[in-house]
């Protein structure tokens, strides 16, 4: 009886051994790539809102401070989404007849809240606090990106734990002086690491990486 496999089949066996390992690696790599992709993290995708509020116009154009609307960003864990009343502070006087703003006026008239779609949605087992980050010199821009250039609103970072922990392990890479926290387009006046290390000391920034810092 002749051999079923001729000698060249050994090549196929060798190739498939290496190829198999490579394939597993490739699938794993693709998987990891996928998990970090915007498709999964939801980053960089515009979120439709009931009123297409433009941060580019209000922040970039008019120069309204973040805290005019996000009132509790420096005092509470939640930065606060402004009540309709805050919109009406100005829009009871300007753009009175704009059909674009009808949902806002309707909300104010009827007492029914505007229902916004959440842009930055952390998992329910993560407890994030805005105020303490602001206090320690983490700029709005550091996580939220150039809000002043966003006509629509989107999430600029992955919000994955890997991303959080980059800063929690080495905050000096990202800190800025407290005066510049609300500033958009901030550039460090010198070497970020030198400034960052000074700020870590000055603001008594602890590198908190215990699980219970965020999970409880």
């Amino acid at each position: 009886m002749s051999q079923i496999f001729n000698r060249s089949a050994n090549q196929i066996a060798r190739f498939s051994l290496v190829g198999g390992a490579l394939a597993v690696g490739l699938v794993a790599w693709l998987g990891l790539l996928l998990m970090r992709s915007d498709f999964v993290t939801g980053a960089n995708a515009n979120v439709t809102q009931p009123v297409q509020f433009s941060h580019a116009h209000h922040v970039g154009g008019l120069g309204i401070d973040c805290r005019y609307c996000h009132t509790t960003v420096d005092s509470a864990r939640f930065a606060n989404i402004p009540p309709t009343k805050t919109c009406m502070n100005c829009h009871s006087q300007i753009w009175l007849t704009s059909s674009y703003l009808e949902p806002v006026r309707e909300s104010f008239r009827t007492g029914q809240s505007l229902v916004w779609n959440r842009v930055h949605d952390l998992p329910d087992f993560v407890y994030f606090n805005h105020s303490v980050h602001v206090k320690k010199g983490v700029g709005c821009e550091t996580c939220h990106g150039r809000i002043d250039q966003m006509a629509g609103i989107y999430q600029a970072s992955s919000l994955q734990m890997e991303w959080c922990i980059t800063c929690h392990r080495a905050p000096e890479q990202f800190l800025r002086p407290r005066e510049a926290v609300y500033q958009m387009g901030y550039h460090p006046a010198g070497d970020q690491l030198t400034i960052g290390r000074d700020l870590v000391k000055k603001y008594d920034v602890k590198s908190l990486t215990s699980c219970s810092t965020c999970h409880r």
Partner: protein
Amino acid sequence: MRDIDLSAIRARLAKQDGTGQTGPAFWRSLDEVAETPEFAAMLHREFPEGASEFTDPAGRRDFLRLMGASIALAGAAACTRQPTEHIVPYVKAPEDLVPGKPLFFATAMPFAGTAVPVLVESHMGRPTKIEPNPEHPFTHGGTDLFAQASVLELYDPDRSQTVMGKGEIRPWSELSLALTSAGAGQKGAGGGGLRILSGAVTSPTLAAQIQGLLTAMPQAKWIQYEAIGNDNARAGSKLAFGDYLEPVYRLDQADVILSLDADLLDAGAGKLRYARDFATRRQVVPGQTAMNRLYVAESSPSNTGSKSDHRLSLKAREIPALAGAIAAGLGVAGAAGQAPASATAFATEVVKDLQAHRGRALVVAGERQPAAVHALAHAMNAALGSVGTTVVYTQTPQANPGEGFAGLRDLVNEMNAGTVAVLVILGANPVFTAPSDLKFASAMGKVPLSVHLGLHRDETAAHSQWHVPETHYLETWSDARTGDGTVTVCQPLIEPMYECRSAHELVAALSGEIKTPLEIVQGFWKANWDGRSASAGAGGAFGKLTDTTGVDFATFEKFWRRVLHDGFVPGTAFAPKPVALAAGAVAAAPAAAAVSPASSGVVPNSSDTSVGGLEVTFHADPSVYDGRFANNGWLQELPKPFDKVCWDNVAYISPRTAEQLGVGERKPVVYGVEVYLANLTVNGHTLQVPLWIMPGQPDGSIALHLGYGRTHAGRIGNGLGYNANFFRYSSTPWVLQGASLTLLDQIYNVACTQGHFQMENRALIRVGTRTQFEHDPTFAQHMAHVPKPDESMYAPWKYEGHAWGMAIDLNSCNGCNACVVACVAENNIPVVGKLQVMKGREMHWLRIDRYWEGSPDAPSVHFQPVACQQCENAPCEVVCPVGATVHSDEGLNDMVYNRCVGTRYCSHNCPYKVRRFNFLLYADWDTPTLKMQRNPDVTVRSRGVMEKCTYCVQRINTARQQAKIEDRKIKDGEIVTACEAACPTQAIVFGDLNDKNSRVAKAHADPRSYGLLAELNTRPRTTYLAAVRNPNTALTPEPAGPATGGHH
């Protein structure tokens, strides 16, 4: 069938001298002492048999098929992105409300003739947690388990939601009209047919409203009824002083206390204050070892008895004689009595000790004892010169004091006679709670118009023509008095969730007024705040009120804001009244005391499974009280202090009575989950009760707990336990004689946690006497060999910032369970149900271990709260394969739910058995009202996840963030864990061990401090302070050896 030999158990427990086989010094259950094979098997299992197995009838292939499908679906589900969440801001934001930051409002929980002052935590308008009000002048903080659980009562999905008329949903307007016209109709007849029945009311506003009604209709009557009230105490004060007076004890002044069947520390209007004052007088440090001494004679084990230095278990009917003998010994004129034979030495020594502490001694009688004994107690206090020092007498905080059973009996007679035309029941459930001889339900059927106001559509609602859902105290305006008379104006935390009405509105409707509760309550105080009006009536007239510093309030608005903010109206505590013993007060007492204990001994029947001549005593259930909390899952699942049974009531008998019954020969109890049923017969009526052998129960006496056997409680409370009201008669509501028990050949399953999570009897409880403490303050530290910190392979942890720790003082803890419920409320701990508890799957992060010491006939009791000890060398951390439990940089053993894959290795390796596993999806993710209760700062856990005590890490983080924002350090006492806050005795202290001046660091440095199982080199961060007792050496000879607690 297998033997459990009680005489062998006694022998084992008696042999403590090291000769031959010795039994344990501290034990949890009779099975443990008997060392039954079932118990040994249980001890070596992580969970009871069946708890960690998949026991559904499905076979292996079905299982694999299901799992395959589940995994495929779970995998697919994991690929989806999070669903879009919405943010719904206010249209106009309310002032002070910051999303994510809770607000606290002061109010009070009215409860059975008293009130618990509380602060309520509110998240975005949802009350989620009850905290104590530390500024309250009477309680100074501390809450009880009922207050802690009351927030679940608010969100109970079984609450009544609509007005019902004759079984149909009706609008409130229709009832309001019916009430107003009935009120108007009655007015003509002077109110002759109008009867109002309420629980014990302390609200000055409601009292004034009803008094106003009664003034307009002089023939109408207001009856107050509490199933568990202090009627005998009131009758006793009338006997002694000729008036209804309330004794207010000052335990901080008392050196020697005698309790005659009184659960002073865990029942009654003053319990929070008394527990606190009692604990402060038992703080010992080297060089300062003055302690109070507590003698207790009681008819069933109580929390107060557990703290006593000398505890005598006596049948309830023997206590009057003991009281008479002691009173005679103290020279109370007219007192006489012969102490029972077992109590003569006790009586002699108590008399000596009380006399040696004249003016610093106190005698207290309990509600189970007849009025004569209360009168005797008052006379003894007078004879000891204690009136004015350890006890003062004030008017009663109850607006309508009376002797409820008599009042209720008259009402039933009137209803049967057909003279009651309108019956309005305010928040009471007499059809369930009234003594059975009154047959309240059938009498109610003869009333043409009956209206019931209640939180639930309960038994009384089922027999009423109209039922109105009652507003929960967290939903409405009202006011209430604490034990000393201090008024709290109760404010609502949330709009009424359903179509509810308060008692205020119902009474107003009866007077033809339609007013909101705010208008009514505020109206009352507008008329009374500045002393202009003297029309407060039964509410008690208030003089001119000033703030706590004695300054007048400028305007009503200022007064109103201040009292709402502080949670009490300053200066409304009752002034002590001068008292004089009425002539003949005590002459009446010996008559009651003359009930000879010798005349009714235990009569063994001819059959060996039946015993007659027994006494029955009735007790409030430690968890569900008189049944009003029957539908509260937190309280149902709470193991009761002594039997550790949940979801049931059992009948306590003593070990000797059990032997007489023959239980000893054939008790097949498997690890405390099976008990025998017996027929309890009194006066020809028979009820089946599960028998529970209770160490320390007097021989020949059966203790029954009220509050079970509900039929209209709701989905949780229906059909649990037996109804002890069956045997309750209005003439003998507390003690019944001539009962007989017949053992049945039937087994009943109970969910009992006394054997769960055992720690194999090492030196867990450490207790010494005052003499031993004076001799060697560090006695507790010599009971086990604790390795030095460097005897470990692992490098020590370093803490640059904080290092959290806890200390629990066993000298203070009286096992009241408030901390356990507080932990459940704070940490979103689910209720698992009776079947799951029977499998050992209860989820409580904090448990209270109860240990007996000594013989099963007269044991001492010790309570030990055990939660995660947050070990420095944590056995759990090293075995987790996925790093789901890891050490934090502040010393906590963090539990990371999102990493946990449910191997349960950590739980197996935990020597303290404090980890809890979600075997099933226990958290209710669907019921909308229950979701409202959840603490938003704590993750709601899902199935397959391990969990445990976190030292309330959410509170730590909140305090840390707040301190950082304010650029300061965290202050000692700023972080208060839920258990610590709830504790009325301040037994629990939490803080930073790195701060040498913190309370917890000082407690850890205390000579009494010891670590639980520290000999395993786990280096627990929670330490315990050993208990120190102060026995009278004349009664207990000082032990020759070192303090008990373990083997070195």
